[in-house]
């Protein structure tokens, strides 16, 4: 049952109890009424309307707005009808209105279905009828007005928050279910597919020849599948934070090792994207220039005020003086593009390379 439905049922119960109270008042006071028969008729109308409202709200149909307006109208009408039933002497003496506390049910229904403003508006309408019936604002009516406005406005405010909380709980449990399913799949894949792929890679390499190529394919599949089931689903914490760790783990392959701390490394999304783009360029630089056998290692270190990402390869490397001067070479362009991206987000880059000793790009960004 939704929060709104539960509260609507509470309003139904209140409506029934206050109807009984109104009936008791009529039974006790009818011999003092100016027109007792009209009193009984109006009590019958209240009973009938209580049934209609209870049934109507339970269906939660699109016609609820109409029902709310009618509900407030009936309540206000009952208050004004007191003028026709009671003697003016008794009204001046402070006798209760004919429906008494029953009118608050319509205000609460507006709070439940139309929020704080709808609730407050209904409160104002019923209060106006109350004041009109009494002909003046007495201490008694003033109390009633305050209570009605409280029930409508504050009640609606609380309902709105409860409904929002209900939605976020439902959202959270959907997410938990999705994560659970993901973990189950990851376990399954880990238990079967990954084991078999690893075994094929292992045996295939020993046999060599064309089987060796199959082995490399299996190894590549194994590591990308492993990266897929290992990396956490992309988290989008409302603050726009992104987990650099899981994004980098996804870059792992047979030739690229990714070493990270055990916990997520949260960065602002824009910063995370800049780092990923820079790392991507460093890796494609390895692909293009470091030689076909080159391997690469990515290391992520997270300190309190900064995150350091290094991308090292064991490829051919370049001499330091050429790194400085030879603008014509493609990889220098890449190096500059990496530096440019990281400088733009307030970080620093050092590139260290020696012929025959590979290249290391170290990216440092504040967090």
């Amino acid at each position, binding site marked *: 049952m939704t929060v709104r439905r539960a509260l609507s049922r509470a309003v139904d119960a209140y409506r029934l109890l206050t109807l009984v109270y109104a009936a008791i008042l009529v039974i006790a006071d009818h011999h003092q009424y100016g027109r007792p028969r009209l009193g009984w008729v109006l009590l019958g109308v209240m009973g009938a309307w209580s049934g209609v409202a209870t049934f109507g709200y339970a269906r939660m149909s699109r016609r609820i707005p109409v029902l709310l307006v009618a509900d407030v109208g009936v309540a206000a009408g009952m208050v004004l009808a007191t003028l026709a039933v009671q003697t003016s002497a008794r009204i001046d003496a402070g006798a209760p209105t004919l429906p008494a506390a029953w009118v608050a049910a319509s205000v609460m229904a507006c709070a439940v279905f139309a929020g704080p403003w709808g609730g407050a508006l209904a409160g104002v309408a019923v209060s106006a009828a109350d004041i009109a019936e009494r002909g003046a604002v007495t201490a008694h009516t003033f109390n009633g007005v305050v209570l009605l406005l409280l029930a409508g406005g504050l009640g609606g405010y609380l309902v709105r928050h409860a409904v929002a909380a209900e939605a976020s709980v439902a959202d959270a449990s959907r997410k938990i279910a999705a994560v659970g399913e993901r973990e189950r799949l990851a376990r399954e894949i880990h238990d*079967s597919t990954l084991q078999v792929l690893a075994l094929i890679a292992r045996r295939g390499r020993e046999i060599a020849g064309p089987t060796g190529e199959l082995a490399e394919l299996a190894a590549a599949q194994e590591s990308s599948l492993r990266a897929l089931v290992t990396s956490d689903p992309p988290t989008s914490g409302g603050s726009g934070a992104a987990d650099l760790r899981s994004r980098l783990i996804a870059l792992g392959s047979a030739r690229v090792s990714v070493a990270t701390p055990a916990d997520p490394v949260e960065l602002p999304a824009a910063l995370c994207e800049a780092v990923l783009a820079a790392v991507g360029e460093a890796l494609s630089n390895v692909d293009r220039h470091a030689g076909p056998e080159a391997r690469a290692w990515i290391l992520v270190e997270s300190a*309190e005020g900064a995150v350091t990402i290094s991308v090292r390869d064991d490829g051919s490397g370049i001499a330091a003086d050429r790194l400085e001067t030879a603008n014509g070479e493609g990889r220098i362009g890449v190096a500059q593009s990496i530096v440019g991206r990281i400088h733009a987000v307030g970080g620093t880059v050092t590139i260290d390379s020696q012929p025959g000793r590979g290249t290391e790009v170290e990216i440092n960004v504040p967090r």
Partner: protein
Amino acid sequence: MSLDETPRAADEAIRVMVVDDHPIWRDAVARDLEASGLTVCGVASDVAQAVRVATATRPDVVVLDLHLPDGSGVDVARQLASLDPTPKILVLSASGEQPDVLDAVAAGATGYLVKSASTADLVAAVHATARGEAVFTPGLAALLLGEYSRLSTGGDPATPSLTARETEILRLVAKGYTYPQIAERLVLSLRTVQNHVQNTLTKLQLHNKAQLVRYALEQGLDAESD
């Protein structure tokens, strides 16, 4: 010189136990190890069996998967720590179980290798583990760097920390440098590099033991005061 410090005779095979719940994989690893001249004294597929078989067969090295049907390889590592002599533990696992890897290391494992490693790497790692050397992947080095960094922010003076040299070496391991490459780069002996790496593990294990003792004492004191 006590008995277990006696240099192992060249022809005395290292006794290995393989713990993995996947039979095809486990048997393949066991065959590879046998083929390289090691003695596989037992295999197990879950935590309870691993502890039983290890107690009965006293392996020198346990090649341990962390992912087991009735628990984690970490439980195996913890329970084997009470055996005397304590078997050396080499974790051979998927790279996915990162917090588990740290727990296994804290519980006494001295090596970590991912399953995609070649047979030659695995055999070399088993030999190194048997000799008491720490077997590191870049991934394990990064996990340790992260763990020490996490511990250092706690502000507790009793927590272990790395020396500048240890941090430097661990970072190089994490970037894929081999021990000989690190030795050459830092102009140190290979032995010194190995010792530094070993120390980073030992400090964490001692810290873990001290915490367990402290926990046990607190529990004990609580029990008495009840």
